[in-house]
C-alpha cells in the first residue's frame, strides 16, 4: 500500500475518533455545567480547554458557548469536532480509490452537512448537534466494518482510531483528575463514553470511584477502555510488522505500545489510581511516541520535494 494512502487512512481513523470523542466529552461537560449551578463556569471552561490541548490566554471570562465555538465549531482547527470531520474528509478525498465508496459518501455527506449542523446548534442546542456527530461517526464505523477488507488499509484505520482513543480517554480521565476528583463526576465520565449501563452491569450498581476508574482504564471487554484500545493498537501493529522477528518485538511502535499496555496490566488498580495523573500523562506520551514511530516506519518521506535548478557554462 502507498505510504501516503496508509497515512491518510491512519488519520481518517484518528480524526473521526477525535470528532466523536470530543463531541462526547463536550456534551457531558456542557450538560454538567448547565445542570449544576454551583460550577464556576470560567474555571471549568479553562480546565476543559487545557485538557483538550487548546489552552487560552484570553483574559475574558470564558463561557460554555465560547468552548463550543472553540472545540466544537472552529473549522480551522483540526482538533475541533467540525475541523476533525473536515480533515477526515480531506484525507479520504486523497485516498478515494482506497476507501470504499460507501465510506467516502458517508464522510462527504457528513462534510456537506456541516453548515446545517451549525444551524442546528443554534436552533436545537448543542446536544442535538453532538448527537448528530456521534451518529455520523457510528455510521462511518459501521460502514468501515461492513465494507472494508481486512487488509493493510483497515489496519491503519483501526490503528489510528485506537491511538486516538487512548489519547482521548486519557484526556477524558484528566478532566476528572484535574478538577480534584469531584467534577465532573464519574457518572458523567462513564456516560460520556457510553459506558454507564455496562459499568452498572459489571459492578452491579456499586458506583465507587475506584471501580469507575478501573473500568475506564482497565476493562478488557469494554471497547472504549484504555486497555482495550491499546490492545487493539498492539494487534494492528503486530499484523502490520513484516514477519516475526527472531528476537523480541519487531518495530519501535510495537515496543512502545506493548510497554504501555503491560504497565497498565501488571500494576494493581490501586497503584494506578494512586498515581492517576502520572499514568495519564504517560499515556498521552505513549500516543505521541507511537505516532512518531509509525510515521517513521510506514509513512516515510511523502512530502513533495522542492527542486532547485543549477547550470554551469
Amino acid at each position: 500500500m502507498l505510504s501516503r494512502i496508509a497515512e491518510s487512512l491512519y488519520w481518517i481513523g484518528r480524526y473521526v475518533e477525535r470528532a466523536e470523542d470530543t463531541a462526547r466529552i463536550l456534551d457531558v461537560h456542557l450538560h454538567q455545567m448547565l445542570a449544576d449551578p454551583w460550577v464556576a463556569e470560567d474555571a471549568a471552561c479553562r480546565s476543559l480547554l487545557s485538557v483538550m490541548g487548546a489552552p487560552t490566554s484570553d483574559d475574558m471570562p470564558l463561557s460554555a458557548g465560547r468552548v463550543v465555538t472553540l472545540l466544537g465549531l472552529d473549522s480551522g482547527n483540526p482538533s475541533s469536532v467540525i475541523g476533525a470531520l473536515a480533515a477526515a474528509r480531506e484525507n479520504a478525498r486523497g485516498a478515494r480509490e482506497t476507501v470504499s465508496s460507501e465510506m467516502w459518501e458517508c464522510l462527504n455527506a457528513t462534510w456537506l452537512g456541516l453548515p446545517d449542523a451549525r444551524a442546528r446548534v443554534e436552533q436545537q442546542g448543542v446536544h442535538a448537534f453532538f448527537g448528530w456527530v456521534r451518529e455520523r461517526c457510528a455510521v462511518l464505523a459501521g460502514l468501515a466494518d461492513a465494507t472494508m477488507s481486512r487488509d493493510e488499509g483497515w489496519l491503519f484505520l483501526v490503528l489510528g482510531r485506537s491511538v486516538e482513543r487512548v489519547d482521548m480517554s486519557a484526556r477524558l480521565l484528566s478532566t476528572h483528575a484535574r478538577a480534584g476528583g469531584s467534577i465532573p463526576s464519574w457518572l458523567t465520565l462513564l456516560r460520556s463514553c457510553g459506558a454507564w449501563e455496562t459499568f452498572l452491569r459489571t459492578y452491579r450498581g456499586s458506583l465507587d470511584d475506584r471501580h469507575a476508574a478501573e473500568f475506564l482504564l482497565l476493562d478488557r471487554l469494554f471497547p472504549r477502555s484504555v486497555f482495550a484500545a491499546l490492545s487493539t493498537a498492539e494487534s494492528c501493529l503486530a499484523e502490520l510488522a513484516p514477519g516475526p522477528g527472531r528476537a523480541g518485538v519487531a518495530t519501535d511502535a510495537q515496543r512502545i505500545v506493548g510497554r504501555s499496555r503491560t504497565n497498565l496490566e501488571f500494576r494493581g488498580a490501586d497503584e494506578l489510581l494512586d498515581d492517576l495523573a502520572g499514568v495519564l500523562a504517560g499515556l498521552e506520551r505513549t500516543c505521541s511516541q507511537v505516532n512518531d514511530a509509525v510515521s517513521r516506519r510506514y509513512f516515510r518521506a511523502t512530502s513533495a520535494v522542492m527542486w532547485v535548478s543549477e547550470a554551469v557554462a
Partner: protein
Amino acid sequence: MADLFENYRLGPGWDEMFATAGMPRETYESLHATLQPLSSADLGVRADVLARAFLDQGITFALKGIERPFPLDIVPRIIAAAEWSVVETGVAQRIRALEAFLSDVYGAGEVLAAGVVPRSVVVTSAHFHREAAGIVPHNGVRVHVAGVDLVRDEAGVFRVLEDNVRVPSGVSYVIENRRAMSHVLPEVFASTRIRPVESYPSQLLGALRAAAPAGAGDEPTVVVLTPGVHNSAYFEHALLAREMGVELVEGRDLICAGNQVAMRTTAGEQRVDVIYRRIDDEFLDPVQFRTDSILGVAGLLNAARAGQVTIANAVGNGVADDKLLYTYVPDLIRFYLGEDPVLPNVETYRLADPDVLAHVLDRLDTLVLKPVDGSGGAGIVIGSQATDAELAEVRARLSRDPRGWIAQREVKLSMVPTLIGNRLRPRHVDLRPFAVNDGTRISVLPGGLTRVALPEGALVVNSSQGGGSKDTWVLAAPLGPAEPAPEPRPAAPHASPAPRPDPGPGATSSQQQQQQQQGGASC
C-alpha cells in the same frame, strides 16, 4: 397538466430529437414517448434525485477553486447504430493517422521532408517537445487514450472540432452519467437497447498493460499519476484508479533512481512499469521541463527513454492536437493511411498567409476565433456574439500573432431537448468520444461525453464555461445474420426454491398477544 414540450421551438441547429416540430425521429421515439406524459413536476423530482446523487458521491469538478457538481441533464442524447459506426470508424482512423504522425515527427520526419506539413507548423508548436525525441514506446503506442471533439453541423453531419491526445478528460462522467441515468429513467432503459460503457476501465487497463516496457514481466504494475485532490479532474483520476484496481499516486509517491521508477509503499519501494499520467508535460519532470514543478517526478523522462517505464499518454503528444496542425489532419490521413477522411473537419482558415488573414479580418463577426494551444474553451471568441470591443481586441491579437490563432466557420451545433427550469428547451451539444489504443486495436467507447451549453443560444459547451452534460446512448445494431444473438443463459435444470433464512428466537405472535394483554387495559 403542463406539457414538458410546451412552446418547444426548433432552434438554428440540427435538432437531434425532432425532424419537424412535434415529430420525433425514429431514434428518439421511445424516449419521447416516456417523457411526453410526464408532468414537469415528475421530471423535476427525478432531476433532483440525479443532482443529489452526484453531490453525495462527490462527482464534481472544481471551477475557480470551488467544487461543484457537473450538471447532468436528465434527457439523454441518442445516437443510432449506423450513425455511430461512422463516428467509430472516423475516430479510429484519425487516431491511426495521429499515431503515425507523432512517431514520424519525433523520429525520421518524413511528413516534413515530403512537405505535407510545413516544418514551421511543427517547430513553432508550443507542445513540440524536443526532449521527447528519441523516446520510442515499447509497443509503438503514444496515444493510449484520445478524446476527439465532434459536432453535428446544420445538416446533421458529424465533423471534428478538435483532437485531444494529451490528457483528455471526461470519461468518468460517461460512466457515472450512465449509472445515474439507469436509476432515474429505468423505463426507457428497459425498452431501449443501449450499448454499455462500463467496460472502459478494463479496456484502459488492458491498453496500459500492453504498453509496459519489455522487462516488466507478465503482471506489469500500472499506476495513475494525479496532480492531487485540488485538480479539477481528481474525481476522474480516483475513479479510473479504483475501477482499474491500481494505485492512484501523486508525484511525491514516486521516486526515480537510476532510471527505475518506484512508488513508496508501507513495505518499501515497489517498481512501477506504466504510468497513466494526468499531469501536463510541462509539470511531469523537473529535470527536463519546469524545474519549479512539485507535481512531477524528477528523472521520469530519461527512465522512459531508457525503456524502463512507459508514460501514457506519451510526452510531446500536444504537437498532434495543436489547432493549427488540426487543419492538416485530413492530409495526414491521406499521407499515412492512403485513405480519405471518414469524418470531415470544420472549415478552418490558417492565418499565416497574409491574404487569408486579410480575408478573415474582414469578416471576424461571422467566424469563430480560437487560440491554437488553448484548451477548455479558454480564449475562444465567437464573432457573432462578441462585442465591438472584443472584436477589436481579437483583431489586434490575430494581426500580432497569426500563428497563435485559427479561424473557423461558426457551426450551429446540433440541439437536444434539455430541462431548463420546468420545461424542455433545445440546447446546443457537442460529443467527445473516447478511444483507447492497445497497439493492436483502437476501441472507441460506445457513448462518449455529450456536453451541453446551458444558456440559450450559447455555443461553448466546456465545463469550465458553465456547461453541463448528457448521458450519451449509442443504440445496439439490429442483429444481422453475421452476428448471432447471444444465447440466453440457461437456468439451472432443476432449480428448487432455496430454504427460508433461519428464523431467530423472536417472540411468536401468541407471546406478543400475551405481552400486550399484561398490565390491564389502559384508559
